């Protein structure tokens, strides 16, 4: 079974530039998550999708971050404009459903904002 795919793996941008990350979840998984993991900390949820609808985006900085999941499969996360404090690993995860299911994580995208 193919795992969660993410691209790119690494990205370096200057502050105020924009960047986009892509995620392809495990086939058949209805729930998709984006997390931000700052060095030395645990992952922090940014947004949860159920199929192509947003379930929870309460921790997403909506002034600069946006995410979409078209057709309930692939998802993109965008940052515009980026700030220095956005430097982190962005993890995508999927699961068969919310709650009492394990989440399957992709390898992440390491973003460095200079």
């Amino acid at each position, binding site marked *: 079974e193919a795992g969660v795919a993410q691209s790119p793996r690494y990205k370096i941008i200057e502050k105020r530039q924009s960047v986009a990350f892509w995620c392809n979840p495990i086939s058949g998984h209805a729930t998709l998550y984006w997390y931000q993991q700052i060095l030395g900390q645990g992952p922090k949820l940014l947004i949860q999708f159920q199929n192509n609808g947003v379930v929870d985006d309460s921790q997403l900085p909506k002034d600069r971050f946006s995410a979409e999941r078209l057709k309930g499969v692939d998802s993109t996360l965008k940052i515009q404009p980026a700030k220095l404090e956005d430097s982190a690993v962005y993890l995508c995860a999927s699961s068969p459903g919310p709650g*009492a299911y394990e989440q399957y994580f992709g390898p992440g995208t390491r973003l460095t904002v200079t």
Partner: protein
Amino acid sequence: SQQGEEDPQALSIQEGENATMNCSYKTSINNLQWYRQNSGRGLVHLILIRSNEREKHSGRLRVTLDTSKKSSSLLITASRAADTASYFCATDVQTGANNLFFGTGTRLTVIP
């Protein structure tokens, strides 16, 4: 914050020894999960324990949950160098959209 907190922050043991790490959380939960993260395999689910369970085993892993104390422990027996990683507890709180709140992690080093 609804995040759990792991204790200790870092742990170093010899291969073959047991490793115990603890997690405390603040709000009532539906379930608690443990994940491992290393550079080779990324973040991987280890075990899930529901709020009505007190203990669960999976191979060399043993997890306990005490909801009255809002705490959990993860025991890894007969550790191996390959167990070197960061371990996170993640709680699925009872209020909200069934999201997971991750703790700050315990960094485990197993010395060959």
